[in-house]
């Protein structure tokens, strides 16, 4: 299968840089699959999973919002945070989930704080799901 270059960049550094066969990302308008020689494409990403197929198999990772860009030199994912499923600290995600749930009850009337808590909740749920998908 034709391969293409995938880069995953986060504020902490370069999370991945290598050749892959396909990528599936979750954009604001739904899941999007990318193969080699895809047309130039830009979209915003929401919290979700990312599936990457390489010659060695499929890996999944958790993305919390960002952007994806495809051009002729390859695909670049700019993510606020990214972890491969096997790197996720599930205990920490569970703790974050509990805190976020409490916050959501606490800040019922404060829209901004509620939004932040909701974002954290979604992110924690996404991490937990991604990690458990990996185990299956």
């Amino acid at each position, binding site marked *: 299968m034709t391969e293409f270059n995938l880069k995953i*960049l*986060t*504020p*902490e*550094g*370069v999370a991945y840089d290598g050749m892959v066969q396909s990528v599936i990302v979750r*954009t*604001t*308008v739904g899941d*999007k699959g990318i193969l080699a020689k895809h*047309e*130039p*494409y*830009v*979209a*915003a990403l929401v919290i979700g999973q990312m599936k990457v197929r390489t010659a060695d198999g499929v890996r999944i990772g958790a993305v919390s*919002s*960002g*952007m994806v*860009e495809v*051009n*002729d030199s390859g695909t*670049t994912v*700019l993510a*606020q*945070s990214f972890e491969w499923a096997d790197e996720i600290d599930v205990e920490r995600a569970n703790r974050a989930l509990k805190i976020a749930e409490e916050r959501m009850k606490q800040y019922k009337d404060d829209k*901004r704080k509620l939004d*932040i808590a909701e974002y*954290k909740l979604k992110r924690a749920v996404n991490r937990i799901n991604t990690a458990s998908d990996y185990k299956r």
Partner: protein
Amino acid sequence: MASGNMKDIKRRVKSVESTMQITKAMRLVASSKLRRAKQKAQAARPFFEAQYALMCRIAGETSNFSTVFTRRREVKNRLFIVIAGDRGLAGGYNSNIIKLAEQAKKDGESPKIIAIGKKAADYFSKHGYEMTAEYPGLAEHVKTADAADIAQTAVDMFASGVVDEIRLFYTEFVSPLVQTPAELEVLPISSPKAKIAAPNKMGTTFDPSPEAVFNRAIPKLITSLIVCSVNEAYASELGARRTAMENATDNAEEMIEHLSLMYNRARQEKITNELNEIVSGANAL
């Protein structure tokens, strides 16, 4: 009199010595922290650059591109985001960046302030500025969530017209010895079109539209801009502190040298005096 003088000098030497111990320790702490801070500052850079380049491309590819974030309007109110340190004893680090922000302000203008770092917060609230938000103790372990919070506040203020321009003040980390205070225009994004040589017409598809992607990406761009500059400013702070503490240690050493010379001289004088007394006493007999 001579013995009293000697006691004084001895006490001063002791006090300078203990100060030197502190400055020495601070220098060591700063230089070990500096190494990690430098790495962190450099790790964040490719992400930010890629993000900024992408934003420019989006704006460049569509001919009639215009959103609230690129349009310039008459400037009535401004927001300054100032990044300084949480602690002093870092040479001119804190005062330089505050000075730069003060200079950037026009006559009679009173910008709204988001202060990152205790020193910035203290200064601007004491001088009667309108504080939009304060974030002391953020710099050492800056979290994306905090930066996102700041970015969202700033973007909301700009989009709703509370402010018409946002500027960021931080200290650029040139090298461990050189740090320069810098000013950045955050919003409106200064005509990204001008920044690219030739708009590439690759016929990129945008999901769902260039403007939608752009507007969604703006808070994220500013978030990582803040993370980057806070990391860089923190590395600068440590660099400045290391230099300052090194100088202080050197000065202390010099001072001790000078004081021990004085001490020896006083001692000599005392001995000479005593000898004189003995000799003249013997002569008188």
